[in-house]
């Protein structure tokens, strides 16, 4: 009897659990009738400023224009790392579950086969570099949302002290002599080249300069991560290199690339960055700058606001400043939205995309914390984020974008894999670059 009772209990429990919440059982889930131009539009985004800003834009749209058009936009937020994994799964399964995908310049080529080109969208208000980065085979596959570029974030107080204290200059020159083989005077951050960066990293490290106010000069984002390739690319481009030759051949096995790897490995091997840099990425860089243990670092533009916030970064807020990346080259990519080729509600989704392309929508987006890819909006909204004008200027003057080809995303990943060992001195630059170059050559097809 005990047995029967147990079976019944298990079965009932299961039935209860099974029945209770079966809410969204529409398989595709895309709502609205196919192509009716109304109904539910589902969109993937990632959390953080982009997702938060977009959710406010979406709320406003659903309450206003959307309700007029009988369109309701629903957002699915996934973590930064998982967004693209989930989308890749949906694309491989040719799913119609989501109507609008979140993409970026670096993967639009890989995803293009699962997207519909946007033909009716007005792209004239955007940064040309952002729009172009989302083109693939001359077709516009996505609409820019946010722009991302890199800056040199540095402790202005410390650098200014050095610049203003001539008595320290001879010592600085001696450190520079050992670090880069050349006696140099300290320079303002905006004028640094990669040698200045290296010499400064040494100067602000206790190992090279026991009286340094910080433990380490810099932190390198050297983890084996495709996003870290983007940052190292700045060193590569700033040293005169690039991924490809003008006629589109892989070009990583060059003296410029070796020099760029050398910047990282010299700093790492000499301890002018923490040995933990080998596993550092965005959050570790933020932590190092926030804790005040590190004098400067290359960082994405999105990182600055938090570092300058007194409640979040009490030790360094107000002491950090922005300068262009040494070598005056910054990787620019756009985060963007694109239309799922297998969506069953393209008309409605396109209406919403058209709405997003307006200056009004992007102004609302900026007010809600995003960094829209429209220069005029960035200029108008400088009061919201003091970094906006610098972002606009930096992208305009120093921005470059990596070529878009179907395997771009994979290429970032393979370059990180091939070079991350060499960045931290685990491998010589020569063979690592040969491996990277061969991988890139293959991926260029």
């Amino acid at each position, binding site marked *: 009897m005990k047995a029967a009772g147990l079976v019944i209990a298990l079965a009932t429990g299961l039935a209860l659990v099974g029945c209770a919440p079966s809410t969204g059982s529409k398989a595709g889930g895309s709502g609205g009738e196919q192509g009716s131009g109304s109904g539910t539009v589902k969109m993937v985004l990632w959390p953080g400023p982009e997702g938060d800003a977009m959710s406010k834009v979406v709320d406003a749209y659903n309450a206003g224009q959307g309700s007029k058009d009988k369109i309701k936009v629903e957002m699915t937020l996934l973590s930064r790392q998982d967004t*693209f*994994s989930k989308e*890749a*799964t949906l*694309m*491989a399964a040719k799913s119609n579950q989501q109507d609008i995908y979140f993409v970026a310049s670096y993967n639009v080529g*890989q*995803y293009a*086969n*699962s997207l519909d080109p946007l033909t009716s969208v007005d792209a004239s208000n955007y940064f040309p570099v952002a729009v172009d980065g989302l083109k693939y085979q001359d077709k516009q596959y996505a609409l820019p949302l946010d722009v991302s570029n890199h800056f040199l974030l540095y402790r202005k107080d410390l650098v200014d002290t050095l610049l203003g204290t001539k008595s320290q200059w001879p010592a600085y020159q001696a450190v520079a002599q050992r670090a880069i083989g050349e006696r140099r005077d300290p320079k303002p951050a905006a004028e640094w080249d990669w040698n200045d960066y290296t010499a400064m990293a040494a100067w602000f490290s206790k190992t090279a300069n026991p009286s340094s106010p910080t433990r380490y000069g810099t932190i390198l984002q*050297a*983890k*084996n*991560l*495709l996003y870290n390739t983007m940052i190292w690319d700045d060193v590569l481009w700033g040293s005169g290199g690039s991924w490809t030759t003008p006629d589109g051949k892989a070009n990583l096995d060059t003296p410029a690339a070796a020099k760029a790897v050398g910047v990282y490995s010299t700093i790492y091997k000499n301890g002018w960055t*923490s*040995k*933990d840099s*080998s*596993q550092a990425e965005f*959050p*570790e860089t933020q*932590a*190092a700058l*926030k*804790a005040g*243990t*590190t004098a400067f670092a290359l960082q994405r533009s999105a990182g600055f606001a938090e570092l300058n916030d007194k409640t979040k970064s009490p030790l360094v807020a107000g002491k950090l400043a922005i300068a262009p990346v040494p070598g005056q080259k910054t990787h620019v990519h756009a985060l963007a939205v694109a239309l799922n080729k297998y969506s069953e509600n393209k008309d409605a989704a396109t209406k919403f995309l058209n709405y997003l392309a307006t200056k009004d929508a992007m102004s609302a987006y900026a007010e809600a914390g995003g960094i829209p890819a429209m220069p005029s909006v960035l200029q108008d909204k400088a009061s919201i984020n003091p970094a906006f004008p610098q972002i606009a200027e930096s992208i305009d003057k120093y921005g470059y974008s990596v070529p878009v080809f*179907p*395997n771009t*995303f*994979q290429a970032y*990943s393979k370059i*990180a*894999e*091939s070079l*991350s*060992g*060499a*960045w*931290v001195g*685990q*491998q010589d630059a020569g063979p*690592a670059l040969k491996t990277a170059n061969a991988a890139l050559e293959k991926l260029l097809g």
Partner: protein
Amino acid sequence: MSTRTTSRLSKWVLGSPLIVFALIFVVYPVYQGIQTGFYSLSLQNPDTLFTGLENFGTVLTDPGFLAAAKFTLLFALAVTAIETVLGFGLALLVNREFPGKKVFFTMLLVPIMVAPALLGVMFRLLLNGDIGLVPEVLRGVGLDVSLFAPNTVVPLLVLLDVLQWTPFAFLIMYAGLQSFPSDVLEAAQVDGAGRLRTLRSIVVPMMKPIIFAALFLRLIDAIRTFDVVYVLTAGGPGTKTTTMSIYIYKTAFESGQFGLAAAASTIVMVVLIPFVPLFVKRIATPGAAE
């Protein structure tokens, strides 16, 4: 003889839930997954073509795959051995009445209760050189070490896995000890058998199936190690800490090569399956117990 007929019928009645479930939720996805390995399914190519064994060839000649296989095997063997031994010792230690047992018993299980994906993030904070507790404490006692330096990162990952999963091995073997008739143990002790001898000649032989189950489960899970390592090192520097699962994850989600990823998974399974019966034999022989 009627018992034989009953048991012939009941064998299928009792087995039926598994058959039904397996037909829908195991056979189809496994078939679908293995089949993908024979096609050129990738995000870059809209056409999915039958490519036969090409994907398998590509994977097997990729030095990255072989490096990942080697690292995974060594890592899995190391952590499994350590965790099984420590887990067994801990199970013996806890298998008696002592004050505070209930509280500590639950505490011992907490590490497996934190989602691995979250635990990776927690470790990242705990071990962070600037704001983490462990480096700060180590510096406090005069040890200025960088835990994530290339030469310490592998031992670090092993240590973290041991911290996380020893409780799992412990729980299984402890539950086994609990099902173990205590009178045998008492009788042995009354006989004057020494502790160590009781352990070697009675406890270990009787516990063998359970010990093997714990060891085997840890081994097959360790072979799939992903979350914590991926969050902490993403497989680097270079490919130094790339496990098989990280390799396959990147192949599918970063490279968009779902056909290759499926082929790599299938290879892992096919290579390891011959070893499975060796363990299963020791865990569960159908029919009467010896």
